[in-house]
C-alpha cells in the first residue's frame, strides 16, 4: 500500500470520530485488516479472490464500446462491473467484509443500505457465508425500493425499516451505528462505501481495488498502453476508489470522479437542502459518520439533505481519501445533473445494449458533456473542446452496476423531460 498519509487518515481527512464504545472494535478490525487483508494471513486474500471468481463472477470484462468510441472520437472502454453477481461492484466489498468478519469470529452482520444495492450485496454474501444478517433501511427507501427488499429477504436477511428523519440512507447509517454500539462485541458492521472511521475507507478501497487492478492489466493488453483517463461516478466513492486506486501512481492517467449534480449545484440554505450530491465539487470539510471529509452542510455544521435521481449517489458525504486526492489535485471532481445522467442511461442502453445503473450513468454523462458532439466545435474540423482534450484518446469508464433496478425511476423521470437519447416509451394497456 502506498498511502501518502499516516495510519488512520489521508492528510487531514479520515480518522475515527466515533463513540468510545466502538473504538475497541475499530482497533480489532484494524488488526484483522492488517493481518488478513494486507498480509494475507491464513490465506485470507486467496480465499477472498477465489470466492469472487467462483461466486462473484470475476474478473469482469473490459469492453471496447464501439459506438461510443465513434461518437466521442476516442477509444472508450467500459469496465463491466454490472456483470458482478448481484449487478454491481458492491459485492467486491460486501463479500470481503463478511468473509473478514468470519475470520474474526464474529457471529452477526449488520449493514445500512440506501437504494438497496449494498444491502442486497451484503445479504448475498452473508447467505453465501452462513452469517446471520440484518439490514437497516430508511422507511422511505423500503417503500420505493421494494424489489431490493424482497431480494434481501429471500437471501434470508432481516430488513429493519428506519423511521427517523427523512427515512433514507443517512438515517439508515445512523441506525446501524446505533445497533453496532450495542452489539459491537459479536457483530461486524459491513459499511457500504469508502466512508466511515478508519480502517473502513482503506479496507473497502482495498476490496474494491480489484476493479482498477483488472482494468489496468486489461487495457494494457487490449490497447497496448495505459489510458489517458479513468471516469467513475462518486457517491460514497467505493467504485471510484476501486477504479482509481491502481492508477493513482500513474501520474499521466487523469482520474475523474463524477458526482451527482442533481437538479442544480446551488444550495437551498434556507431549507438546509442541497438539490445535488456534489460533495467533492461543492462541499466543505467536516465530520460525518466517523470521518473528517468533505460534506454538504450548513454554515452551522448541520448535514444537509442531498438529492439525486440516482439513489446510490444520494449522500451528503464522500470517502475521505477522495477528499484528499481532490485537494492535492490528483483527482478531478466533476458533476453532471439528473437530466444528463438520464440521457446517458438511454444512450448506453440504445447504442451499446448495456443498461447501466443510474449511478454509473453519471460517469457516462460526463463523457457526453466533455466529448460529445455538442462539446466540440461544429465546424468541419472538429477541434476538440478543452474538456475533451483533457480526457485524451483512451478513456476507461467504470460501469459500476446494471440498471434493471432503475427502470421505474427512469421511466418516471424520462416522462417529465425531453431527452435526446430516450426511446419513446409507449404505454401499453395495464
Amino acid at each position, binding site marked *: 500500500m502506498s498511502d501518502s498519509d499516516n495510519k488512520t487518515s489521508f492528510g487531514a481527512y479520515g480518522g475515527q470520530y466515533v463513540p468510545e464504545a466502538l473504538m475497541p472494535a475499530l482497533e480489532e478490525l484494524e488488526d484483522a485488516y492488517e493481518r488478513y487483508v494486507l498480509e494475507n494471513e491464513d490465506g485470507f486474500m486467496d480465499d477472498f479472490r477465489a470466492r469472487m471468481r467462483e461466486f462473484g463472477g470475476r474478473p469482469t470484462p473490459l469492453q471496447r464500446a464501439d459506438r461510443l468510441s465513434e461518437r466521442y472520437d476516442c477509444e472508450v472502454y467500459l469496465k463491466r462491473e454490472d456483470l458482478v453477481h448481484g449487478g454491481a461492484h458492491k459485492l467486491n466489498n460486501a463479500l470481503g467484509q463478511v468473509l473478514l468478519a468470519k475470520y474474526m469470529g464474529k457471529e452477526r452482520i449488520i449493514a445500512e443500505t440506501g437504494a438497496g444495492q449494498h444491502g442486497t450485496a451484503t445479504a448475498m454474501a452473508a447467505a453465501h457465508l452462513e452469517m446471520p444478517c440484518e439490514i437497516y433501511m430508511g422507511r422511505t427507501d423500503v417503500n420505493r425500493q421494494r424489489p431490493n427488499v424482497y431480494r434481501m429477504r429471500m437471501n434470508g436477511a432481516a430488513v429493519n425499516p428506519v423511521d427517523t428523519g427523512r427515512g433514507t440512507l443517512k438515517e439508515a447509517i445512523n441506525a446501524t451505528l*446505533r445497533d453496532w454500539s450495542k452489539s459491537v*462485541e459479536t457483530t461486524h458492521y459491513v459499511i457500504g462505501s469508502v466512508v466511515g472511521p478508519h480502517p473502513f475507507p482503506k479496507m473497502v478501497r482495498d476490496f474494491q481495488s480489484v476493479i482498477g487492478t483488472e482494468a489496468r492489466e486489461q487495457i494494457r493488453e487490449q490497447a497496448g498502453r495505459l489510458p489517458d483517463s479513468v471516469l467513475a461516478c462518486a457517491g460514497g466513492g467505493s467504485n471510484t476508489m476501486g477504479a482509481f486506486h491502481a492508477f493513482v501512481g500513474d501520474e499521466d492517467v487523469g482520474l475523474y470522479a463524477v458526482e451527482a449534480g442533481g437538479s442544480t449545484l446551488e444550495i437551498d440554505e434556507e431549507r438546509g437542502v442541497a438539490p445535488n450530491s456534489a460533495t467533492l465539487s461543492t462541499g466543505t470539510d467536516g*465530520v*460525518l459518520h466517523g470521518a473528517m471529509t468533505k460534506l454538504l*452542510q450548513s454554515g452551522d*455544521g448541520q*448535514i444537509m439533505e442531498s438529492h439525486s435521481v440516482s439513489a446510490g449517489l444520494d449522500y451528503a458525504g464522500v470517502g475521505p481519501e477522495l477528499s484528499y486526492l481532490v485537494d492535492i489535485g490528483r483527482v478531478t471532481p466533476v458533476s453532471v445533473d439528473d437530466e444528463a445522467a438520464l440521457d446517458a442511461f438511454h444512450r448506453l442502453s440504445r447504442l451499446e445494449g448495456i443498461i447501466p445503473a443510474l449511478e454509473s450513468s453519471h460517469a457516462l454523462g460526463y463523457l457526453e458533456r466533455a466529448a460529445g458532439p455538442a462539446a466540440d466545435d461544429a465546424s468541419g474540423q472538429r477541434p476538440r473542446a478543452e474538456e475533451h482534450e483533457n480526457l485524451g484518446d483512451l478513456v476507461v469508464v467504470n460501469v459500476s452496476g446494471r440498471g434493471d433496478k432503475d427502470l421505474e425511476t427512469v421511466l418516471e423521470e424520462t416522462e417529465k423531460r425531453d431527452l435526446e437519447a430516450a426511446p419513446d416509451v409507449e404505454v401499453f394497456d395495464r
Partner: protein
Amino acid sequence: MTTDSDIERAIRENHPALIAYITAGDPTLEETAEYVEALDRGGADLIELGLPFSEPIAEGPTIQAAINRSLEAGTTPDSFFELVDDLDVEAPLLVMTYYNMILQYGSEPAVEPFVERAADAGLAGIIVPDLPAEESEPLREACEDHGLDLVFIVAPTTDGERLETIMSQVSGFAYVQARLGTTGARADVSGATHDSLTRLSEYDVPKAVGFGVSEGDHAAEIVEAGADGVIVGSALVDLIAEKEGPATALEAKAEELKAGARRGAEDVPEPEQP
C-alpha cells in the same frame, strides 16, 4: 491534576452528584431556560445542555426526537450561546454536542472559535460523544487554553491501554457509560456498570455513570457501586415531551434522583480527597 475545575469541585462538594441532561431548544430556548432553573432548584449539581446536531449517532430515540424538535425550532450555536449567556444558575453548565458542530463554528473548520465562545458564555465543560481520545488533541488543547473541561466517556468495552490513555486525558469527570448502546431510559442497572466502576476504581478522578438511569433507586444503586455521580438524560427529556408544565416535573424528578443518590452514598465511604 493541578487545581480542581468548577466541574470537579461541583461533584466533590455535592457528592454524590446529580448530573442532568436536557436538549437545548426542546421545544424552544425560552423553555430550556425555565427547565434549567427547575433542575438547578431540584438539586442538579451539574447540567449538560445538548446543542443539537442533525446526525446524533450516539442517541436513542428519546433524545433523537428532542434534537429534531430543537432543530425544527431553529436552534443554532449562536442562539444556544445566547441562552447560556443569559442563564444564571448555581450548577456549572456543560455543552454536549457532536464534533462537527464544534468544528464548523466560525468561518473556517477549527475548534478554537467554539471553545472561546463557550468559555465566554460561562460554560464549564464540553462533552463530545463522537470524539474519542485519539482524535481529541486539538479540542483538548483549546479547552485547556480557555479553562474548560473536556469530559471523556468510558465505555464498557474500554479496557487496558485505551483506558490508560483516556484516564490520562480526563478532566472534570469520567463519564462512565453504563451499558453498550445508545442513550435512553431503562428500567434496570446493568452489570456492566459494576464492572466499569471496578476497572476505574484505581483512578483518582470523579466518575459519573450515565446511559439508562431513570429513577432514584437506580441512582442509589449506582452510587452504592462506587460512582461519584449519576447522569440522567432521557428520563428528563421524556418529562419535557410528555408532561404539561414540565418545569415542576423536572424539579421533582431531580429531587427524587438526588435523594436516591444520597441513599446510595450512605453505605459507601466518602471518597478520599486528593
